[in-house]
């Protein structure tokens, strides 16, 4: 291929030269070039290396179907592999390089793998995994993992940057009446027709210019411009550089808009790409058709490309891609290109596989009828093509032609990918030798060559008709066809019984022989063929090769193509960057962060925070260089000795109001709530329908018809959803209203023997929270000094005399200032989640780690709480025999046998004699207990503490710290009678 830039012609701007680098070499192109056209004009022929055999590859097409010119663009953090040079716009300073080769694409040492190609045939990976015959050497995972590393290194398609992506991406949502995909003759007419009928139309085009096939025909430029003006004048919203990569349910389309990928100077305010979710009333697919090749020896050599591509390079980029050109065709579509190439000064021979040409022969073009290429010669370019003809059922050689460019048109494949996404199964049309879009009941309409219509004027009419269909005015669509002489289908040229390198899927190096081998080995379903040979599984999803593969498969099976069928296309049509999918949901925005109203107050007072679900909560408050271990032990000890204050604002809070509120709670909770007096709180456990524990918390009766229910932090949302479900679907007769008030309150727990006097010091004069006025589980409204109204409840998670105090969220800081001053003067402390854990483990109180969805209320040791006098949710199914077994794992406390030892959360609890398997139970939490002076744990073990009174147990942790002998004790490890909290 001796391509050269012509002095005139094309759509490039010769007054605007653009410098770029290719493999470190500085080259020059023009504004309006693609990377491929600029490389072609600079005489670069080998642009890539193939996936398995490292064969030289050059430009094969001029669009998204490209399988040869696949390169890496950008450097450092912006390095992007597998960019199709044919669609990458050229810009100043663009830096591109070849990939899958060493030292470079022109001289690649990896090409030696071509010598061993018979070992890399279809199924190589699977066969190797099974071991090498005859003795299955290397069978099994271990060795496989070793040579997998080597294979991965040798195969592949370039490497992505390992640095963080410096660019940002946006998500955008949009609506329209009619979405038109593609701006060729059919698409522009469809958009215009729908817009003129008053519809809101969105037209998207993946190219950087509107016009599709008009762009390849200089004679159509006026028509193109007029049509674009009309479309814009009719109010169509037009997006270029935007690919509709997938269609989804209910008219939803996914679009990828490339915003800055073509710019030399990046605007930091602009996202690199935008990911659009469009909801369309109807969708018109004017996605065009792709010219395909067929299989013959060396059909992948640089210098072999589609005939349509040559026309694009000539008419859009002003390049004559070869001097002595052979055009091989099976249909009418190449004759315009032949005439234009000849007029531009090339010697052109058309080798038409049909016995007679369908179109008048252009001047200066020689024609050979009934022949097709058998073999291409030349190493890194085309030097000669050997021809063959098909007589009496087999191929025989039929001369040779010297040439530097071989153009191939094996037929056209309509782009049916998007409707296939919606399950419209493509239908084989034998007379057009292509798959046409299948039918669907959804408002999706194909127009133009994507519906197998080949004539431009027919395409324009088809676009108008599709628009009428989309707006419900017409039911008739255009018929496929439009060639003067029918296509003569051709999929492979091969002398009898000859093994060749004739490629079917260029990107994945799948040959015709691979397809036959798969068939021979029994992979006769098209879906199996695809997976076994990886046909159509490369980044192009088999845009050029799939149909050849299916045809060869059909031939091997002795069937017709429709009987073999085709695989279903899946989104995306072209690759979508992960960054675009993620959008702005990265780093700190990956998930929402929830802060309590006391967040800043906690930080000002030395809190180290930890994540609890989406929440940030104080973990511990270190003093004087303490680490976490010293801090939490001190905090827990201080609570038991004087007083501690802990932010509990993240607990879920639900206002349950209405005449039937008490009845509702009575059905939801396993214990009784109907008779809870006003001014009292009660701890409750709710079960799921299947009898397992769902959540726990306290409920405060503020008035006859008004309750405040607290949930665990984790289940706040889940419990609210559950309440709404029950009230709306199951008990619609109950007059109850629920609303989430979690964010409305700032809440703290004040715990310890000095908690009462600490709070009393913060109240307005005369407020009484004595044991008589506010007994255990009492609830009351109080006023803090300065006039802030508060809710107070005497409830305890720590096992100490303790209160929860709630004020409106905005008064949180004021409450904390008061409390902290009073607590500090009494030797108190602030405490975080770690100390909270210590205090509750000492008491054997459960949290989410224990209530993991697999435990019954009896397993937690709280079975006696469940009412026997009333039914409640889960009361039936908790009586299942399996759930009543005595040997079920039950909540226990755990001490190390040697009190100086420690063990870890997550350990398995085993019988000391059989430390094996899954053991008899597990440890859900451990802590150092300052009250007991040693490490303790909480967990579950089969049969509970009673069953293990005399049985030695082991906390087994084989992969971390080893095994520790433990004693199984009651979960109530500290103050089992609860004297401290009642005091």
């Amino acid at each position, binding site marked *: 291929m001796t391509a050269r830039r012509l002095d005139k012609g094309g759509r490039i701007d010769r007054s605007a030269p653009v410098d770029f680098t290719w493999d470190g070499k500085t080259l020059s192109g023009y504004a309006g070039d693609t990377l491929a056209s600029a490389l072609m004009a600079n005489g670069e022929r080998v642009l890539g290396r193939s996936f398995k055999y490292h064969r030289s590859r050059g430009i094969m097409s001029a669009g998204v179907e490209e399988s040869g010119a696949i390169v890496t663009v950008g450097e450092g953090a912006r390095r992007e592999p597998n960019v199709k040079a044919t669609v990458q716009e050229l810009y100043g300073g663009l830096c591109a390089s070849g990939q899958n080769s060493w030292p470079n694409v022109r001289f690649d040492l990896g090409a030696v793998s071509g010598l061993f190609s018979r070992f890399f045939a279809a199924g190589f990976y699977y066969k190797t995994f099974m071991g090498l015959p005859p003795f299955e050497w290397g069978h099994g995972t271990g060795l496989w993992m070793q040579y997998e590393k080597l294979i991965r290194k040798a195969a592949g398609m370039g490497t992505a940057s390992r640095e963080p992506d410096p660019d940002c991406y946006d998500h955008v949502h949009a609506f329209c009446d009619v979405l038109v995909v593609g701006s060729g003759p059919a698409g522009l007419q469809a958009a215009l027709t729908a817009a003129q009928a008053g519809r809101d139309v969105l037209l998207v085009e993946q190219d950087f210019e509107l016009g599709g096939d008009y762009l390849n025909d200089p004679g159509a430029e006026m028509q193109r411009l007029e049509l674009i003006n009309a479309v814009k004048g009719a109010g169509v919203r037009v997006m270029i550089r935007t690919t509709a990569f997938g269609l989804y*349910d209910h008219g939803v389309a996914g679009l990828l808009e490339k915003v800055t990928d073509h710019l030399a100077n990046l605007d930091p305010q602009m996202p690199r790409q935008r990911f659009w*979710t469009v909801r369309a009333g109807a969708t018109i697919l004017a996605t065009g058709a792709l010219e395909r090749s067929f299989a013959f020896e060396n059909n992948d050599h640089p210098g072999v490309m589609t005939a349509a591509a040559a026309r694009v390079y000539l008419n859009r980029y002003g390049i004559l891609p070869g001097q002595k050109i052979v055009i091989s065709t099976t249909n009418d579509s190449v004759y315009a290109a032949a005439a234009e190439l000849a007029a531009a000064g090339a010697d052109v021979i058309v080798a038409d596989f049909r016995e007679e040409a369908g179109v008048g022969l252009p001047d200066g073009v020689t024609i050979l009828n009934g022949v097709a290429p058998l073999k291409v010669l030349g190493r890194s370019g085309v030097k000669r093509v050997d021809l063959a003809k098909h007589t009496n059922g087999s191929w025989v050689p039929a001369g040779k032609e010297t040439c530097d460019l071989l153009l191939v048109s094996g037929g056209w494949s309509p782009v049916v990918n998007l409707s296939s996404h919606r399950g419209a199964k493509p239908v084989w049309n034998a007379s057009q030798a292509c798959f046409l879009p299948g039918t669907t009941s959804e408002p999706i309409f194909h127009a133009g060559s994507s519906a197998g219509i080949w004539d431009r004027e027919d395409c324009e009419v088809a676009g108008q008709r599709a628009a009428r269909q989309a707006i419900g005015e017409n039911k008739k669509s255009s018929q496929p066809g439009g060639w003067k002489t029918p296509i003569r289908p051709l999929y492979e040229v091969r002398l009898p019984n000859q093994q060749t390198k004739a490629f079917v899927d260029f990107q994945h190096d799948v040959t015709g022989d691979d397809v036959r081998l798969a068939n021979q080995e029994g992979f006769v379903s098209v879906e199996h063929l695809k997976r076994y040979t990886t046909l159509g599984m490369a980044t192009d999803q088999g845009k050029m090769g799939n149909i050849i593969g299916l045809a060869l498969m059909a031939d091997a099976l002795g069937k017709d193509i429709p009987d073999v069928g085709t695989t279903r296309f899946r989104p995306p049509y072209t690759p979508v960057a992960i960054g675009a999918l993620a959008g702005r949901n990265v780093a700190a925005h990956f998930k929402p962060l929830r802060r309590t109203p006391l967040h800043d107050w906690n930080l000002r007072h030395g809190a180290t925070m930890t994540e609890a679900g989406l929440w940030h909560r104080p973990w511990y408050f270190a003093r004087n260089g303490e680490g976490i271990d010293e801090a939490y032990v001190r905090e827990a000890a201080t609570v038991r000795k004087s007083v501690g204050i802990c932010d509990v604002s993240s607990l879920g809070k639900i206002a349950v109001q209405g005449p039937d509120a008490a009845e509702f709670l009575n059905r939801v909770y396993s214990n009784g709530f109907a008779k809870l007096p006003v001014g009292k709180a009660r701890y409750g456990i709710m079960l799921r329908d*299947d009898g397992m524990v769902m959540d726990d918390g306290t409920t405060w009766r503020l008035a006859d018809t008004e309750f405040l229910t607290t949930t665990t932090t984790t289940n706040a949302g889940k419990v609210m959803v559950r309440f709404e*479900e029950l009230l*709306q*679907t199951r008990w619609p007769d109950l007059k109850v209203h629920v609303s989430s008030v979690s964010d409305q309150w700032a809440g703290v727990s004040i715990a310890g023997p000095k908690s009462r006097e600490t709070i009393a010091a913060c109240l307005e004069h005369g407020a009484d929270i004595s044991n008589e006025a506010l007994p255990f589980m009492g609830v009351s409204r109080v006023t803090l000094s300065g006039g802030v109204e508060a809710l107070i409840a005497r409830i305890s998670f720590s096992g100490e005399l303790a209160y929860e105090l709630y004020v409106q969220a905005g008064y949180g800081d004021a409450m904390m200032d008061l409390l902290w001053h009073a607590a500090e003067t009494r030797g108190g402390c602030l405490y975080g989640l770690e100390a909270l854990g210590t205090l509750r483990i000492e008491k054997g109180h459960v949290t989410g780690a224990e209530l993991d969805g697999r435990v019954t209320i009896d397993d937690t040791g709280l079975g006696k709480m469940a009412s026997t006098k009333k039914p409640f949710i889960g*009361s*039936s199914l908790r009586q299942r025999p399996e759930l009543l077994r005595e040997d079920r794992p039950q909540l226990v406390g755990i001490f190390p046998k040697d009190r100086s030892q420690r063990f870890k959360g997550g350990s398995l609890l085993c019988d000391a004699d059989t430390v094996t398997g899954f053991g008899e139970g597990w440890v859900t939490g451990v802590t150092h207990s300052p009250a007991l002076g040693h490490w303790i744990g909480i967990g579950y073990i089969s049969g509970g503490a009673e069953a293990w009174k005399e049985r030695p147990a082991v906390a087994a942790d084989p992969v971390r710290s080893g095994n520790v002998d433990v004693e199984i004790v009651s979960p109530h490890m500290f103050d089992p009678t609860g004297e401290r909290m009642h005091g």
Partner: protein
Amino acid sequence: MIRIPCPFCGTRDHSEFTYGGDGTIEYPALDAPKEDWHDAVFLRDNVCGMQLETWHHVHGCRMWLLVERDTLTHEIHSVRPAHPGLAAMFETDQEAGE
């Protein structure tokens, strides 16, 4: 992505909703025998075709909805409030409108 016409909010993306479950289940009384509860909780049909199911408009009006959806095509046939009283009000409104 399917889109659900919420009777309160209009047509919204399914990402605003959470799926509930089988909308045909009649839950037994709380004190019903565990066999009845077993059937209601554990026995589910795997419907191929139109299915009545509950959805919760959790990031919208927070109403529970009864949706008739084709499990093969995702076609949505009807949507109504799961609360029978609200559903009846909607029907009355529609009749009055006609």
